[in-house]
């Protein structure tokens, strides 16, 4: 199909869709309205279980099954990237030459790296209290490691990043989340039931029953998964060359 025909199709279909969406928007409850039945119930349920961050309670307790799916999507996608970005038969590895990075950038990276790691861990650990949680903190921690690439070079990053360990950590923490779910069934309660541990004191790190545990599992899973993911892309961009040697 030539671009002009395609554009006509887009205009036709997009026009119809736009009309439909606008008509629907005009019928939606007004922005900022007071009526949120599910949300109000969720807040009450979270407070009843001593979880200060309602969003964490929804994610890791009330709708923990969604989070299981979400975590598995990430796990599956990373596994998929490992498969898709593997070294093909007609490629070889060509370690990049070590390169020199300006001293201020190196200093900045070395200072910020630990700060970012600590921030990541802080965001994970406080997930059930203040904004944040396993996912956000995990991404920050994983990104922090890659300051090694920005501040030094790829070889330095590879030294602090034994990729196999991260792959296994990814799989184990994903499994840990599922095992916590199974524990509910084995204990005679429901799958992913938050009834195994005491709910603790409101607004304390150990409050919320299994929420901190699931949160920690997600944090570790995400951190490992992002490291593995970026490693595959970096491998492709920096190391893997086509042809069997030149």
């Amino acid at each position: 199909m030539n671009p002009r025909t395609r554009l006509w199709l887009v205009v036709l279909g997009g026009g119809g869709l736009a009309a439909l969406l606008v008509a629907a928007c005009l019928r939606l409850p007004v922005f900022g309205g007071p009526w949120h039945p599910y949300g109000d119930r969720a807040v009450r349920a979270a407070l009843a279980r001593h979880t200060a961050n309602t969003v964490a309670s929804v994610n890791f307790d009330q709708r923990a099954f969604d989070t299981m799916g979400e975590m598995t999507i990430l796990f599956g996608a990373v596994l998929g990237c490992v498969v898709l970005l593997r070294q093909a038969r007609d490629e070889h590895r060509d370690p990049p030459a070590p390169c020199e990075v300006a001293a201020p950038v190196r200093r900045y990276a070395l200072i910020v790296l630990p700060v970012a790691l600590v921030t990541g861990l802080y965001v994970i650990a406080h997930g059930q209290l203040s904004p944040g949680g396993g996912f956000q903190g995990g991404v920050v921690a994983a990104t922090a490691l890659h300051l090694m690439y920005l501040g030094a070079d790829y070889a330095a990053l590879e030294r602090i990043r034994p990729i196999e360990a991260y792959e296994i950590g990814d799989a184990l923490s994903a499994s840990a989340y599922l095992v916590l779910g199974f524990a509910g069934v084995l204990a005679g309660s429901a799958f992913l039931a938050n009834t195994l541990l005491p709910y603790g004191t409101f607004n304390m790190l150990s409050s919320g029953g299994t929420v901190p545990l699931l949160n920690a599992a997600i944090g570790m899973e995400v951190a490992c998964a992002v490291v593995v993911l970026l490693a595959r892309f970096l491998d492709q961009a920096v190391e893997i060359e086509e042809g069997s040697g030149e």
Partner: protein
Amino acid sequence: MTAVMHVLPYLVAAYVFLVGAYGLATSRNLIHAVGCLAVCQSATYVLLLAVGYRDGGTAPVFSDIRPGSRPVVDPVVQALTLTDIVVGATVTALLLALTVQIAKRHGTVDPDELRELRG
């Protein structure tokens, strides 16, 4: 102003979605197309959070306020959006991985130049 404000966020979400879809359909570069898909997805974040907003509400996070002292917005849509963001990031990564392989095998990332899988 208020009448517009009542629907503006929804309309912005619809607009962003349509713009992303337009970009996807007319893209000449698969990496750009993946970016457009991310734009489409950001429309879903906007719509979900707009649906859950409450005038004068604050975040349903009680680490620094007393429960019940202020009205709060809907936490459920926030949880849904969080899931959505993770999904978006993973889909982006996976599609980029496939695009990298297309570049290797076809020597181009322009969909107009991919001459396979016809008929």
